[in-house]
């Protein structure tokens, strides 16, 4: 188990370096001068060069990547080896610490993603199971039609329609915006109720697509598992249908769903860009889009670091969880 963990962590480090390196190089290849942008239109050629020197963008890409990695290290060798706080550097555009940008955006995205996940599982589990139990019934046909619609509609469209109809026309929810869970800053609305009230439309938007995908997966898995021999064995033992479903069918049918959920949540944590953009949520995806538009590579890299870490960690959690719930899998 310990060996397994050590190996997984080493792999994670390698993966991390590769992902960030590719992102870094890609960013370097964009034919734009961040210094020019940061400096402004009125700058002379000399001013731009001074800004470029201050930002470090006049140095080769490997030097810049080295600095980036150096900032992430918990130790520094400048002036004798000593411990330091790892950091993500500062934005090219507004000189803010990227750490605090990520720290502010991550809870917004996490609120959106985990809330939406609960919502889509609450929809997908019962609908998927009931559809599997009664294939070709009215419910099944209705839910399969819903699945098709949910998969086909773009989240931007869903988000805008919800925002317009429920927020703007019906005045039932805010049109956009976010409220802090732990109380608002500077007189802005805050607290759990405002938080949920502001997030309800984003949750629905993000949940619709995923609910559709999960209904289909759960339905297919349950239907497949229902025909397994061990389900017949359970019935032959005299188990009531509810017990057959819970202890024998679902326990097996939901195993792959766990993996899927882990991956999807991790991917969404990297930024549910469409939903965040439509509802003006200041989350990771929204920030990433802004930063890319400004050639603000430290901010983009910061968000990539966070997203990569989230995916790696979720991956590890899913694998550990899987080994725990599926006895056939051993971690070696």
């Amino acid at each position, binding site marked *: 188990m310990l060996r397994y963990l050590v190996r997984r962590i080493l792999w994670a480090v390698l993966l991390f370096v590769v992902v960030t390196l590719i992102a870094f190089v890609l960013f370097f290849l964009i034919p734009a001068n961040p210094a020019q942008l940061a400096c402004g239109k009125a700058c002379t050629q000399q001013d731009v060069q001074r800004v470029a020197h201050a930002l470090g963008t006049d140095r080769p890409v490997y030097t810049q990547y080295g600095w980036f990695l150096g900032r992430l290290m918990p130790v520094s060798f400048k002036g004798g080896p000593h411990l330091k706080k790892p950091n993500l550097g500062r934005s090219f555009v507004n000189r803010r610490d990227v750490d605090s940008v990520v720290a502010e955006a991550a809870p917004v995205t996490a609120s959106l993603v985990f809330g939406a996940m609960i919502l889509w599982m609450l929809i997908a589990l019962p609908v998927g199971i009931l559809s599997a139990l009664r294939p070709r019934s009215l419910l099944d046909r209705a839910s399969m039609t819903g699945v098709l619609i949910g998969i086909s509609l773009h989240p931007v469209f869903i988000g805008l329609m919800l925002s317009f109809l429920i927020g703007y026309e019906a005045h039932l929810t805010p049109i956009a915006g976010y409220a802090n869970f732990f109380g608002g800053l500077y007189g802005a609305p805050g607290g759990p109720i405002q938080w949920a009230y502001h997030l309800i439309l984003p949750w629905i938007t993000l949940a619709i697509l995923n609910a559709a995908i999960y209904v289909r997966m759960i339905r297919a898995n349950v239907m497949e598992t229902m025909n397994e021999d061990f389900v017949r064995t359970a019935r032959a033992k*005299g188990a009531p249908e509810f017990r057959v479903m819970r202890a024998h069918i679902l326990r097996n049918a939901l195993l792959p769903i766990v993996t899927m959920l882990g991956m999807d949540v991790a991917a969404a944590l990297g930024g549910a860009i469409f939903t965040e953009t439509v509802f003006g949520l200041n989350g990771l995806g929204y920030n990433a889009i802004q930063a890319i538009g400004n050639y603000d590579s430290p901010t983009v890299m910061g968000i990539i670091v966070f997203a990569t870490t989230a995916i790696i960690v979720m991956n590890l959690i899913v694998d550990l969880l899987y080994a725990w719930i599926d006895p056939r899998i051993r971690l070696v």
Partner: protein
Amino acid sequence: MPLLEVKDLKTYFSTDDGVVKAVDGVSFSIEKGETLGIVGESGSGKSVTCLTIMGLNNPKNTISMGEALFNGEDLLTMSPGRLRQLRGNDIAMIFQDPMTSLNPVHTIGTQLVEAVRLHRDLTKKQGRARALELLKQVGIPRAEQRIDDYPHQFSGGMRQRVMIAMALINDPDLLIADEPTTALDVTTQAQILALIDRLQADYNSAVIMITHDLGVVAEIADDVVVMYAAEVAEHGPVEAIFRKPRHPYTWGLMGSLPRLDTDVERLVQIQGHPPSLLRPPSGCRFHPRCPYVMDICRQVDPVLAPTGDDPRHLQACHLDEETKSREAEKLLAGMMAGAS
């Protein structure tokens, strides 16, 4: 009153291609402590017969008719709740493939305890003690440790032993074994059969043994039902079937018995393929493959009737008694000659 009396059982499946008559008028009965062998090719309806008795067919596309009286109660018409009380408690079943018949995510202990506690008001601890007792009886080595293992940690033979333990854990009156040895290697087959035989004696259960292996039937059965294309071709006590087989299909089955003690180059096989149950042949269903086919066979389905000398020995064939005796004797003489 027999323990189980099946009368004119019919099971039809509706499929996209039409109605498949998987079991079409099967009758037999079995007394307490007896063993009934049901023999036939794949698709002859032997498994479906037993799944129908257990109520394990998919109810959505299945129609069952006739009666299956278990201690006088009709299994086909009783409430699902009552059927659940009987299943696993009074009637238990062992399936063909032990590799897939156990739930992979629960330990065998959990699955055995579940089987007890569905029918007995026992604590988990008592259930576990009972499970352990059964595992020892079916010959699982180091049962105390193995009870907490998962199915994938057992070999096929051991898994089938676990299945048998699970079936016998509530001391059922009737045990249905659906080709319990087909998926196992020959040595293990013999062990499993010996185990079922021994436990049957211990528990005084009646056993229905479904198989396509006449050797198995000869070994353990008291009565034999030979099924062909959803119908009973021949039915009688085991000595009668083996000493005086009266149906060309039974002869065919016997001819295809592999014998280790002869140097026959090839097994004699029954020509042709089993018929489609969507559109069974007219008249006698065996006629397209029967070497003794007559005109009447193509038009009239023979009724299952007692043979001349034994009222318990039933057969469904148009051939006259004399020809049947002669051909059966020729076949047996041939087998004896081969054996000596």
